[in-house]
């Protein structure tokens, strides 16, 4: 019987000994017992060697073997583990951490996507390609033209990328091949361990958190994660976090404070997710809570904007001691398309809105919001992700060295001070009373100091000095 044993269903009375004998066409007795033991058997009482003398009979047994295939059970889809089913011999020599990361390099490198303003480069590249092909087919030497064209290509590229307009920078910031948060983190860190979940029912894929080691020091990394292709983008929800993501970030930040990890955040989001469930779960509240709690964390925080910084969704992990921006990244209060639709009443005015809103890194440095611009290699970050990551790492470590020397209280004061001075108002001059006609003027009598004293509750007045000089107590 060549049927595999697991698919054959043998009667239960057949012992395992006989099962092994079934491959041999021995005649089995009715009761299926062993050859020697059964008294009814004609071979009974004789040794097995005696039994060999008999010719093997035709396979006529009373035993019916039902070779039933098991009903194929519908398998529940297997949880896709990031480690291989079988480990190769050399795998377990080094650190096991890479086996826990689901973020693996893409199987095929991404297709280059030229941006609209890169058309001249595309033309030159095509010409170079054609000349190379003709050189290959005809065998003639075109090296002079090729080198000329190559030089021209480099020059045009340099000119283009040194004078990018805000609209062009926005398109570079939104480039589909721009390196994502995890790309940078994996380039920068020696060890990386991704941590998950908000401990309240959800794990938002749009916001990644984890611990990494850089330059011998451990940091907490938090960032928005875009997808590298369409499938990943759908899984990551295009880096638009829901309230669950912000609560996960808050949990990690409080964890980092407790243990002493400085926090490094990476901003790359078009904005917080605008969906029904997000609203029901309190999107506004999650962002507000993050904003408030970040100003009470007694560890250094450095934020790097690596792509787009979309309004409140970006700010919720962006209240920092130092704000760094990549050269071609943007940070806006409302996307230029939304702004155009509201103020210009047409989405076609998006380029004008981009220019007017002053969203690029250089303009934000002038407004005292951004502390340093990190240069990108020529061609944008997507052309050389490794160099970009190294630039970011250098900038972060430079600022971190200064921040690590500060005491927690002065760190908090510095952080509040950084945001306190942002904003520009006009005051000091008396305005036209017409402009104040609907504002309630003062109607309290002018001995205010007495009035204030009268109503402060007594226990507060007793502890007045203590409460006023209380330095930052740990956030409750």
């Amino acid at each position, binding site marked *: 019987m060549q049927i595999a044993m697991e698919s054959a269903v043998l009667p239960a009375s057949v012992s395992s000994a006989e099962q092994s004998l079934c491959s041999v066409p021995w005649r089995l007795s009715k009761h299926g017992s062993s050859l020697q033991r059964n008294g009814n058997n004609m071979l009974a009482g004789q040794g097995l060697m005696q039994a060999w003398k008999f010719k093997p009979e035709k396979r006529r047994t009373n035993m019916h073997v039902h070779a039933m295939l098991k009903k194929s059970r519908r398998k529940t889809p297997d949880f896709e583990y990031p480690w291989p089913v079988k480990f190769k011999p050399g795998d377990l020599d080094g650190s096991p951490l890479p086996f826990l990361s689901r973020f693996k390099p893409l199987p095929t490198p991404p297709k280059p996507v030229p941006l609209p303003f890169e058309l001249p480069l595309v033309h030159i590249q095509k010409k170079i390609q054609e000349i190379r092909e003709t050189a290959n087919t005809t065998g003639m030497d075109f090296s002079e033209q090729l080198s000329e064209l190559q030089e021209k290509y480099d020059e045009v590229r340099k000119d283009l990328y040194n004078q990018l307009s805000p609209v062009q920078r926005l398109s570079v910031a939104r480039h589909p091949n721009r390196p994502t948060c995890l790309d940078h983190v994996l380039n920068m860190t020696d060890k990386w361990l991704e941590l998950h979940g908000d401990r309240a029912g959800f794990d938002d894929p749009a916001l990644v958190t984890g611990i990494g080691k850089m330059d011998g020091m451990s940091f907490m990394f938090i960032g928005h994660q875009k997808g590298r292709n369409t499938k990943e983008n759908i899984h990551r929800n295009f880096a638009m976090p829901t309230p669950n993501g912000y609560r996960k970030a808050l949990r990690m930040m409080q964890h980092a404070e407790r243990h002493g990890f400085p926090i490094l955040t990476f901003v790359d989001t078009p904005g917080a997710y*605008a969906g029904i469930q997000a609203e029901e779960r309190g999107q506004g509240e999650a962002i507000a809570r993050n904003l408030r709690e970040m100003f009470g964390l007694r560890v250094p925080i450095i934020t790097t904007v690596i792509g787009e910084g979309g309004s409140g969704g970006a700010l919720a992990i962006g209240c920092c001691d130092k704000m760094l921006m990549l050269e071609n990244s943007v940070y806006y209060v409302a996307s230029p398309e939304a702004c155009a639709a509201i103020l210009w009443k047409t989405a076609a005015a998006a380029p004008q809105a981009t220019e007017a809103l002053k969203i690029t890194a250089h303009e934000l440095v002038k407004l005292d919001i951004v502390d340093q611009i990190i240069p990108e290699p020529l061609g944008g970050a997507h052309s050389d992700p490794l160099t970009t990551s190294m630039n970011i790492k250098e900038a972060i470590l430079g600022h971190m060295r200064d921040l690590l020397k500060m005491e927690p209280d002065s760190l908090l004061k510095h952080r509040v001070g950084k945001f306190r001075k942002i904003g520009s108002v006009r005051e000091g001059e008396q305005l036209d009373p017409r402009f104040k006609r609907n504002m309630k003027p003062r109607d309290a009598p002018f001995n205010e100091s007495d009035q*204030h004293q009268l109503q402060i509750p007594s226990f507060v007045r007793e502890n007045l000095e203590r409460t006023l000089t209380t330095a930052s107590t740990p*956030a409750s």
Partner: protein
Amino acid sequence: MVMSVINWFEDRQKFGGLIGAFLEEATRSSMTNERDRRISVNANKGLWARCDNCGNMLYVKFLKQNRSVCEECGYHLSMSSMERIELLIDPNTWIPLDEDMSARDILSFSDEDSYETRILLSQEKTGLTDAVQTGIGYLNGTLIALGVMDFHFMGGSMGSVVGEKITRLIEYATQRLLPLVLICASGGARMQEGTLSLMQMAKISSVLQLYQVQNKLLYISVLTYPTTGGVTASFGMLGDIIIAEPKAYIAFAGKRVIEQTLRQKIPDGFQAAESLFDNGLLDLIVPRNLLKGVLSEISGLYLSVPYNKN
């Protein structure tokens, strides 16, 4: 113009009949869809106003006496910031702060009009210097720090001035240990000030950290119609107690944005105060007539804590 439309409706009602009522219903629903259910009760323009909810005609003088709440159906019409201050603050106790602060066109922003022109026009039209009034005053005998936002000035948008005035109010309240009440009404951040408006959210939240968490003082936020965008995502939802007015529209992303993202119709009442209340995001829904009493009772409850040793 307003008078003639009102007269037309009154005539229709006089003649009565099912057809009249049907047409009136149809026009009213189309109007509300366009105007987003907002009605500005402007005492200067006419003697009559119309309730948006029940269509009832309301005599403005009585309406003001009733705190802009419709007598028939209880619908809360919009209220200016001056009226709100008078609603809450005891007479002859109000001291305003930073009255002469106004916006600066830092980005030299210009869409169809320049930002500066828009500011001047709004100041002229509304009689307000910017979208918020801040100050201190007594509420039933307790001194509080009060900030009231006004939707009439550029849609209540939060720019540098709103951020600075509220920050200074909170810093004053921290120094003087006053309870804080902020009444929120906003369409979002002021786009003409770009990323500066965004940072105001962080600025206000940073001083709230010092006020609430480090100095453990009481902050009550009152959310009115409408409270959206940056205000919801910063100080609106950070109150120790969050109070909303009935049927207030409280959202982070506006209805249109959600509909565009999801490409499906949003159910009515989705971002209304009642729906947020059911989802656990608010503490209380308090009608306007009771607001002053409720605020005063709350501050009384917090003042009589017996174990304030922390």
